[in-house]
C-alpha cells in the first residue's frame, strides 16, 4: 500500500505541532509528510519571541530542527510560499514554481498583524511585531531612534512596549479604547495596570484615534489624532490585532468567515474535501483563537481525524496569566461580567497596587470569571474552579480577599477531576501528572521533561507542584526529603540549624538533631555545609571523618586507587616559568599528564605517599590547591578578551582571575564552574556554566545556572550591563543563596529547575532583596573569602597530617596492584587491565601501545 501524502502549509507553532503529533502516532509509517514555510527557518517559539531582546538566540527559540525532520522522514522547504492550490488535481504550487501533490492538505498559515489604514503607515520605521525578522528590524530602527510609539494597548502591544523600552527608547502606548487590555480586563483592572505601567516610565494615551502619520518636527514622525492632539516619535510599532492568513483559501471556494478566517468544523475540516485548517488561520464557531493552546488542540484533532480517531475540537478557554512590563495580570472567563444575572465582587488595595474582581453565577455558587492585577496567586485556583464547574466552598469573597491569618482558602487539588487541565500551553492534565509521578518522575524537573508542563509560559508551576505532591502523597510516598536515615531534616533545614545554633561539628549536630553514626550521604553533605559556613580546615580532627576520599587526601581518586593532582591555574593564565615547573613535576614523578576541560593541567597516577612531595614542589613554585577534588568552585574559564582579542569588549582574563581568586575554596552543595567571555562570540562557553559572565559594550551580562555534564542546560540571562562591583555583589549573593537552599549534590541547574518562581523569583531575592537577606549573604561570603587558606600548604606544615599519606600504616611498601601501559609517549599512558596485571604478575612483558 502506498503512503498517504500530507502537505502542511506553514511551519509555525501549530503546523509544527501537527507534524510532531503525526511523528509520535503509532501509524506514522503509513504517511509521508511535506511542509512549506514562507519564513526562512523552521518553527520557533513565537510565544517567547520577546525573550529575543533578553538575549535568547534564534537557536534557543527553535522548536524543531532540520535533523529532527530528517530523522523522521519529514521533507521541508523553507523560504518558499505556497501560492496556489489546484484542488481538482490535488496539488499545491509555490512561489518558486515547485509543485507537490497531496492526499490531505493542512493549512496552518497563522495570522498577520493588522495595520490600520492610516495615511503614512507604510514608511521605513513603521513596524510590526510577529517574526524574528520583525525583531531584527526593530533593533536596527532603535539604533537610530530616541522615541517609540506602540499603536495598540492589548496584550501584544504591551509586550512590544516592553521591548522598545528595553531597547532604550522613550516609550508610549496609544490605545483606541478607553483602557488597556480592553479584551481581557475590566475598567478597574485596566486603570490599575495603567498606573503601574506609567510608574515604570511608559506613557499611556487612551481613546486616541490616529488619523495620519506625517513628518515630525522634533522627531522623525508626527502622529495626529482625531481629537486634535498629536505625538512625535521616531518609530511606530503597530500592534492593533491580528488577521487570519486566509489568502490561499480565498482563491478557491473554501468557505471563509464574513470577517476572514477559514471556516472549520469540529474535526478541523474546511468546506473542501481533504483540506484541514488549524491554528490562527482557522475560524471555529465564528471565533479565531489568538493563543497557541487552542491551536495545539486543533493540531491534535486534525491528526486524530486523519488517522481515524474520534477527537473533536470543542472550543477553548481564553483565560490568560502573564507578566507585562513586570506587572502580573490575569484574566479568567467572563472577566467583563457580561453573563446575564451574574454577580461580582471587587477587592482593591491602592497602596499595594492590587486589584481583583471575581464574577460568579447568579446563584452565587460558581466562578464564571475573574480579573487579577498585581497579585495573581489565586489564578490557578479560580481557573480550575471555573473549568471544573466546582461549587465555591464557603463565601465567594474569601477567594479574593487577602488571607489575614495566612490561611488562604485554597481549593485543594484533590477536588479537581483527573481531566482538569493544569498546563494549558501543553495541554497537561492532572491525570497526566499523576501518571508521570507513578512512572517515576518525582520532582519538578522530572515532571517538566516527561510531560512538558511548565515549559511553555511557566504560569502553571505552582499548580503543577501541588498536583505532583498530591500524587506523591496518594502513592504513599511520603514526600520525604530528609537528608538520610540519620537526619530527618532537609539539607536546607540543616543549614539553618547550623547557622542559627552556631553548630561547628558533625558530632555536635548528630547529638542534638540526628541518630546513629551517620553515613556516606550525610557526612560529606554536612561536612560541606560546615565548610561553607565556617570554612574551617577540612582535615581538622573533627572534620576529617566526614570527607569523601577525594577531600581526605586533597586529590581525586582514580579507578585503581591512585590519585590525580590539579593545581589552580586561575583563569587559565600561567607564566612560562610555572609551566616549566609543572613539566618537571610531571616528568620527575612519572605522572600521566593531560590538559583538563577546565583550562588547567592534571597529573594522574600519584600514589598516596607521593602526594606530599609533589605538592611541596608545587607550593614552592607558588601553586595552590585547585580544589578539583571538592564539591566547591572548580575553575573560572576565560577567553583572552580585550587585552589581545580583536573583538574583545572587556578584559575577560582579569575578571576571571579575580573571580577565581575570590571564590576559590568555597565549599558548595555540588561543584561550581564559571566562565568569562570577552564578547558575545562566547569563546569561553560561559552559558554552559553555573555562573557565566559575558562582556558587552555596556558592561557585563550575568548568566546563571547553566550546566554541561549529563544533562546540559543553557544558563539563564539574569542581569545585563553590570559594572564590576554589581556583578560581584550579585554573584556573592547567588552563591550563598544556592549554598543555603539547594539539596545535597544538587547542581545549580537542577536547583533552578525546581525553584518555585524560577529566575524571576531569584531576581527578586538577589536584586530586589525581597527576603531582606542580601546583607547577610554578602557577610557570609566575606567570611569565607577572609578565612581562605590553601589546604595543601597547611597540610604540608602538619607532620601529624602527613602521616596519613602512606599506603600502609605499618610498612613502607606500596600497593602492589598497580600497573600501567605506555601510550603516546607517556609511561603511565593508561591503567593496565586486570588481565594485563595478572600477566605482569607472572612476569610477562606487556606490549606497548602507540597511537598517533
Amino acid at each position: 500500500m502506498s503512503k498517504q501524502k500530507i502537505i502542511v502549509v506553514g511551519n509555525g507553532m501549530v503546523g509544527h505541532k501537527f507534524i510532531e503529533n503525526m511523528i509520535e502516532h503509532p501509524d506514522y509509517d503509513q504517511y509521508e509528510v511535506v511542509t512549506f514555510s514562507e519564513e526562512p527557518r523552521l518553527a520557533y517559539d513565537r510565544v517567547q519571541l520577546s525573550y529575543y531582546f533578553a538575549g535568547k538566540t534564534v537557536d534557543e527559540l527553535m522548536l524543531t530542527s532540520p535533523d529532527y525532520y530528517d530523522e523522521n522522514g519529514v521533507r521541508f522547504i523553507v523560504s518558499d510560499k505556497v501560492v496556489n492550490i489546484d484542488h481538482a488535481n490535488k496539488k499545491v504550487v509555490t512561489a518558486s514554481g515547485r509543485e507537490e501533490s497531496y492526499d490531505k492538505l493542512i493549512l496552518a498559515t497563522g495570522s498577520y498583524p493588522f495595520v490600520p489604514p492610516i495615511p503614512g503607515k507604510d514608511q521605513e520605521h513603521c513596524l510590526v511585531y510577529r517574526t524574528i525578522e520583525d525583531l531584527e528590524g526593530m533593533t536596527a530602527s532603535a539604533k537610530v531612534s530616541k522615541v517609540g510609539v506602540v499603536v495598540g494597548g492589548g496584550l501584544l502591544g504591551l509586550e512590544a512596549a516592553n521591548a522598545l523600552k528595553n531597547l532604550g527608547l522613550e516609550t508610549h502606548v496609544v490605545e483606541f479604547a478607553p483602557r488597556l487590555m480592553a479584551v481581557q480586563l475590566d475598567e478597574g483592572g485596566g486603570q490599575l495596570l495603567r498606573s503601574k505601567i506609567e510608574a515604570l516610565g511608559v506613557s499611556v494615551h487612551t481613546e486616541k484615534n490616529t488619523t495620519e502619520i506625517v513628518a515630525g518636527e522634533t522627531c522623525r514622525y508626527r502622529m495626529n489624532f482625531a481629537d486634535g492632539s498629536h505625538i512625535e516619535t521616531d518609530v511606530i510599532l503597530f500592534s492593533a490585532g491580528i488577521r487570519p492568513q486566509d489568502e490561499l483559501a480565498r482563491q478557491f471556494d473554501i468557505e471563509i468567515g464574513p470577517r476572514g478566517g477559514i471556516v472549520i468544523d469540529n474535526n478541523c475540516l474546511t468546506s473542501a474535501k481533504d483540506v484541514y485548517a488549524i491554528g490562527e488561520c482557522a475560524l471555529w464557531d465564528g471565533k479565531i483563537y489568538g493563543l497557541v493552546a487552542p491551536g495545539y488542540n486543533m493540531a491534535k484533532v486534525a491528526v486524530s481525524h486523519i488517522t481515524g480517531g474520534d477527537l473533536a475540537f470543542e472550543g477553548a478557554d481564553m483565560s490568560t496569566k502573564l507578566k507585562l512590563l513586570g506587572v502580573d495580570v490575569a484574566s479568567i472567563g467572563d472577566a467583563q461580567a457580561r453573563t446575564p444575572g451574574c454577580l461580582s465582587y471587587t477587592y482593591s488595595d491602592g497602596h499595594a497596587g492590587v486589584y481583583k474582581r471575581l464574577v460568579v453565577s447568579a446563584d452565587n455558587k460558581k466562578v464564571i470569571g475573574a480579573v487579577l492585577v498585581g497579585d495573581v496567586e489565586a489564578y490557578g485556583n479560580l481557573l480550575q474552579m471555573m473549568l471544573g464547574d466546582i461549587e465555591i466552598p464557603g463565601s465567594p469573597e474569601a477567594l479574593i480577599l487577602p488571607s489575614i491569618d495566612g490561611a488562604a482558602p485554597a481549593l485543594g487539588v484533590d477536588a479537581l477531576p483527573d481531566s482538569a487541565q493544569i498546563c494549558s500551553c501543553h495541554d497537561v492534565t492532572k491525570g497526566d501528572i499523576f501518571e508521570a509521578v507513578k512512572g517515576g518522575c518525582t520532582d519538578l524537573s522530572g515532571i517538566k521533561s516527561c510531560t512538558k508542563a511548565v515549559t511553555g509560559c511557566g504560569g502553571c508551576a505552582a499548580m503543577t507542584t501541588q498536583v505532583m505532591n498530591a500524587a506523591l502523597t496518594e502513592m504513599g510516598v511520603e514526600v520525604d526529603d530528609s537528608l538520610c536515615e540519620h537526619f530527618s531534616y532537609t539539607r536546607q533545614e540543616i543549614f539553618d540549624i547550623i547557622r542559627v545554633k552556631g553548630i561547628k561539628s558533625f558530632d555536635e549536630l548528630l547529638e542534638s538533631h540526628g541518630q546513629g553514626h551517620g553515613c556516606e550521604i550525610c557526612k560529606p553533605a554536612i561536612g560541606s555545609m560546615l565548610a561553607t559556613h565556617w570554612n574551617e580546615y577540612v582535615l581538622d580532627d573533627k572534620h576529617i571523618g566526614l570527607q569523601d576520599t577525594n577531600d581526605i587526601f586533597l586529590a581525586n581518586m582514580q579507578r585503581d586507587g591512585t590519585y590525580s593532582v590539579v593545581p589552580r591555574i586561575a583563569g587559565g593564565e600561567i607564566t612560562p616559568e610555572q609551566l616549566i615547573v609543572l613539566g618537571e613535576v610531571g616528568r620527575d614523578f612519572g605522572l600521566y599528564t593531560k590538559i583538563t576541560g577546565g583550562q588547567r593541567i592534571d597529573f594522574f597516577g600519584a600514589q598516596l605517599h607521593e602526594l606530599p612531595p609533589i605538592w611541596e614542589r608545587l607550593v614552592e613554585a607558588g601553586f595552590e590547591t585547585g580544589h578539583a577534588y571538592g564539591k566547591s568552585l572548580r575553575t573560572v574559564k576565560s577567553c583572552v578578551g580585550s587585552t589581545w582579542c580583536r573583538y574583545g569588549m572587556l578584559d575577560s582574563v582579569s575578571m576571571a582571575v579575580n573571580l577565581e581568586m575570590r571564590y576559590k575554596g568555597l565549599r558548595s552543595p555540588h561543584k561550581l564552574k564559571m566562565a568569562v567571555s570577552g564578547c558575545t562570540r562566547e569563546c569561553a562557553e560561559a552559558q554552559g556554566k553555573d555562573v557565566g559572565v559575558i562582556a558587552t559594550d555596556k558592561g557585563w551580562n550575568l548568566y546563571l545556572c547553566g550546566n554541561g555534564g549529563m544533562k546540559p542546560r543553557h544558563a539563564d540571562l539574569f542581569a545585563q550591563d553590570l559594572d564590576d562591583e554589581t556583578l560581584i555583589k550579585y554573584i556573592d549573593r547567588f552563591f550563598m543563596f544556592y549554598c543555603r537552599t539547594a539539596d545535597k549534590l544538587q547542581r545549580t541547574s537542577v536547583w533552578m529547575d525546581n525553584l518555585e518562581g524560577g529566575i524571576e523569583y531569584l531576581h527578586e531575592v538577589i536584586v530586589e532583596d525581597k527576603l531582606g537577606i542580601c546583607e547577610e549573604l554578602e557577610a557570609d561570603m566575606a567570611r569565607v573569602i577572609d578565612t581562605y587558606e590553601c589546604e595543601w600548604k597547611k597540610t604540608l606544615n602538619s607532620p601529624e597530617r602527613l602521616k596519613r599519606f602512606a599506603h600502609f600504616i605499618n610498612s613502607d611498601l606500596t600497593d602492589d596492584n598497580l600497573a600501567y601501559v605506555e601510550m603516546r609517549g607517556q609511561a603511565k599512558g593508561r591503567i593496565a587491565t586486570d588481565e594485563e596485571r595478572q600477566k605482569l604478575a607472572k612476569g610477562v612483558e606487556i606490549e606497548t601501545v602507540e597511537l598517533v
Partner: protein
Amino acid sequence: MSEWKDICKFSDLAANTGVCALHNQEQVAIFRVGKEQKVYAISNYDPIGKANVLSRGIVGDIKGKLVVASPLYKQHFCLETGECLEEPENSVKAYAIRVEGDVVQLQA
C-alpha cells in the same frame, strides 16, 4: 592459635576513619568507629572496583549495621562481617582485631 600481632598505635587512628595495614602479605583495612575504643578490620580490596581502597571510604551505619562505603562506587561493606550489602556475592573477608592498651592487634 590465638597469637596477636601488633599493627599500630590506637592513637594513630583518627576517629571514624580507616587505615590500611600489611598483614601476612594481605592488605587489611582497619577502622576506628565512634568514641569508644572500638576497631574493625576487613579486607582492603574492593572486589567491585578491583582496587585496594576500602580503608579510604567513609564509615557509618545503615539500618543499624556498621559499614564502610567504597570510595569508588559506594557499595557498603559490613565492618563486622565483610558482607557487601548490595552484592552479597562480592563480600570480603573480615579479620579478628583487638586493642590492647594503646596497641591495635590483628590475629596472626
